[in-house]
């Protein structure tokens, strides 16, 4: 596969610039599904523009974390962005084991958000934080099983190679396994980004929200940081799923760049469609669901092992 670092950098900059577009795409899709015009595609940009110009209100209960949590979350996500192989170009920052750093950086962002939420001493934020750590802990297993599958399929421990290596396309079980694993990654993405059916970013009901409940007390630029981080995370995880499905030897770098970009936007449309057609689950049922996801990821791995005749 020809390497062209230009396209990786282009991919990174696109991610930074276009991330807020993705929630716009999702909302537009949802609007289409119900037959309304809906907010502009650029609405998230308008919101960010406004928020960075507003003042902040500090909670008098806070003893610090509320102020630094948004910055910490954003830094964690910015760093995590460096490990994806945009347009199937190997990341210049890649190293053996970066997949784990990637996963744990997402964890760091979450930790920051949860500590920030608990800093307010509000029961809603406590509720959101409690749910966030619960589902994150249970998703972690499924995510690592997916990474295990990718590592085995690509024979590499570096996220760039895992996601961009050409697959043995002649083995049907491996193809099936890739699709299965991408499905699990998609579910992980929905959970991590607090989307329906796991969380509902739309209903403004404190008692049922997860992510939204945790950010009730942020205002102005801090809220802007958080919303931008959320958009970045959504882009990041969607790109991960897209790259899993995009074979690296398919085309030349410019074509792959376009494909990966279109793929992410298509991902937004798919998320919008899922949100439009399903109701949100009971919280009590989610753990079983996530456990099922973990098992499915392990099945994907087993399929690959069988498909490739058990290693080299």
């Amino acid at each position: 596969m020809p390497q062209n670092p230009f396209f990786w950098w282009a991919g990174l900059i696109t991610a930074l610039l276009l991330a807020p577009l993705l929630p716009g795409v999702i909302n537009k899709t949802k609007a289409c599904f119900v037959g309304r015009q809906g907010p502009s595609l650029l609405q998230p940009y308008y919101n960010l523009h406004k928020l960075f110009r507003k003042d902040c209100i500090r909670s008098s209960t806070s003893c610090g974390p509320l102020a630094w949590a948004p910055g910490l979350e954003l830094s964690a996500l910015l760093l995590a962005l460096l490990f994806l192989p945009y347009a199937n170009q190997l990341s210049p920052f890649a190293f053996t084991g970066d997949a784990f750093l990637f996963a744990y950086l997402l964890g760091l962002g979450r930790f920051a958000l949860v500590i920030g939420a608990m800093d307010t001493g509000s029961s809603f934020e406590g509720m959101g934080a409690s749910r966030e750590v619960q589902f994150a802990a249970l998703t972690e297993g499924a995510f690592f099983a997916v990474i295990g599958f990718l590592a085995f399929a690509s024979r590499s421990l570096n996220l760039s190679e895992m996601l961009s290596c050409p697959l043995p396309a002649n083995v049907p079980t491996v193809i099936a396994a890739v699709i299965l694993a991408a499905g699990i990654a998609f579910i992980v993405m929905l959970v991590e980004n607090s989307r329906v059916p796991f969380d509902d970013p739309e209903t403004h009901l404190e008692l049922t929200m997860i992510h939204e409940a945790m950010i009730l007390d942020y205002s102005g630029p801090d809220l802007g940081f958080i919303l931008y981080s959320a958009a970045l995370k959504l882009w990041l995880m969607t790109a991960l799923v897209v790259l899993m499905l995009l074979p690296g030897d398919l085309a030349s770098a410019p074509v792959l760049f376009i494909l990966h970009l279109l793929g992410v936007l298509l991902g937004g449309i798919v998320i919008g469609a899922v949100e439009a057609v399903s109701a949100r689950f009971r919280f009590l049922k989610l753990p079983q669901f996530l456990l099922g996801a973990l098992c499915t990821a392990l099945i994907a791995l087993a399929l690959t092992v069988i498909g490739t005749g058990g290693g080299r």
Partner: protein
Amino acid sequence: MLLSALSCFILFAAVLFLLFFGAVWSWFSRRRPERAKWLGALSAMLGCCAGTVLALPAAAQWVPAQHFAFLGLHWQIDALAGFFMLPVLLLGLAAAGHSLGYLQGHGGQRQGTYWFFFNLTLLAMLLVCAAATYIELLLAWELMGVMSFALVAFSFQEQETRHAAWVYLLACHAGAVFLILMFVLAGNPNPGYAGTAVACGLLGFGLKAGFPILHVWLPEAHPAAPAPVSAIMSAAMLNLGIYGILRFLPPVSPGLLGWLLLGLGLSGALLGIVLALAQVNLKRLLAYSSIENMGIAFLGLGLGFLGLSQQNAAMAVCGLGGGLLHLWNHALLKGTLFLLAGAVFKSTGTLIIDKMGGLGKDLPVSKNLFIANAAALSGLPPGNAFLSEIMIYLAAFQGVLSGNHVILAAAIIAAVGLALSGGLAAAAFCKASAAVFLGAARNPRNHEPHPECRLMLGPELFLSLLALASVIFAPWLWENILPGVLQQSPLIGGGSWPLSAEHGSQTLSAVRNFSFAIIALIAVLGFLRHRQLRRKVLDTGCTWDCGYALPTARMQYTGTAFTQPLSDYFRLTLGRHRSTVPVQGYFPQEAAVHITASDPGDRLVWHPLSRFTARIADKTRRIQSGYLHLYILMILIALIAMLIYAVASSLPPAAAPEPALPAAGQLHQNAAPLQP
């Protein structure tokens, strides 16, 4: 800076002398608390500093391994011993400093007593590391157990503490019994006993290191002891169990050992953290987290031994190295956290998480240190524990790539388990940091919280800086220290090929660089935010309370509530017990909910066992008729039975009665929790 053998010996003797002398002198001056305190603390600190000068070069292999006889016994200080001595010494130094603050207000003879046992415990731990043969090990081991027992029982006025101390003493002795057995059996030329010897060794050392099910003493003893002592026990003394395994376990195939440690590690890691989640006592939570982290270390070692058995160098190095590195990282972080828990206790007078809240405003530095260390211990970058966890992940994924289906399955389960325990650890530590330091104070305190004590802050900062330093120096540690340390273990060093530090060092440096990138980015973003807000008027308002007129501190999540969904999910493991006065009728007047979590080790193994033995004992009481001639008859019957057995199996009769001992040990241990 090579130290000659002689200077090594002198230094070793000096350390022992300083600790011993300090101990004895503060004991004799216990009627003058001030003098006893400073004598004990200074000698402990000096001893630890001197010890570091001895242990660090040994661990780094700047000096060759030293053997010497002292007090008529044989001692050795090599890389392995040095590596395990370092946490003892550094933690000893920090804990001694912290104790000065922690024990303020303890007058009378307590200071002298405390420092006597404190110094001797340190001494015994150093001796355990330096023991060259079984005899020295057993002596030092027993000394360590008894001395630390006295420290655990320091607040003996409280019933809970007395109970914890007795359980601890029984566990120590049961462990010692297993070790004696191991040495007896290992010395036996009959190959049939080798397996039993290994089993006894694992049981004996595992009791100290907190193997699952054998861990039950740990969450009792650690919270009962004074905070600096808990720090030493949790951070340094647990390690010695692993040290014992690496150094003294009879030869065993690496494959078998690998599978055992993998299984124990995985179950320990998950069990430990699930139990930690449900705890309401801060130190108990930390103690269970120690079980989890020991589990992670075992997991790494297990993967490493599996790698050894598979001749998979990358897996072996990453696993073994990662396991050892994790012990080191855990020691620094958990040490700090226990010391901080001590500071919290001093400030509030309680350890019950659900009673606290809002301490961050009274103890700002402690709050920041606690959150940082808690995040690091959850394995989050840029903390140091992430470096060791990523090595263990690498080992597991080397196993995934190895092509062997069985190893693959085990490795993927290990990786998923590790990920799950990481997520749960983050939940547990969010709970601990948030419910203690953040939000508003839940209970109106009956006294003003004490301001932060500098004497306690110093050691906490010192250990935190060491943790940060170990991020910086991790690649160096990996390349220059760990291979040498591992070579010293008879279980590993005997391998046919050298351990190369090449595997993983690139990853470690990359992670280190990214860790600093995170810190730099946070600083940049913080600066940007500051600039953005500089020109604006910052309002302060109460947390959004839905416009309610009279919000109270009860309207925030408690620690138990925070983890309630997860604890409910693991309720089968936790055995959570809700005692409720139910909400009844349309207009209930009173209702209450109290939740307690019981340890499955206690609940499923030790309690049934102790009930069983108590029943047996009850039945056998009939034999105790009190008539002398009946006893003589029984002795006669026993002798004849033994004679028949000895003749029939043509074995040395001495071995036969031995197995009765562990049963007795267990019996005592089990009976203990039933005491009122």
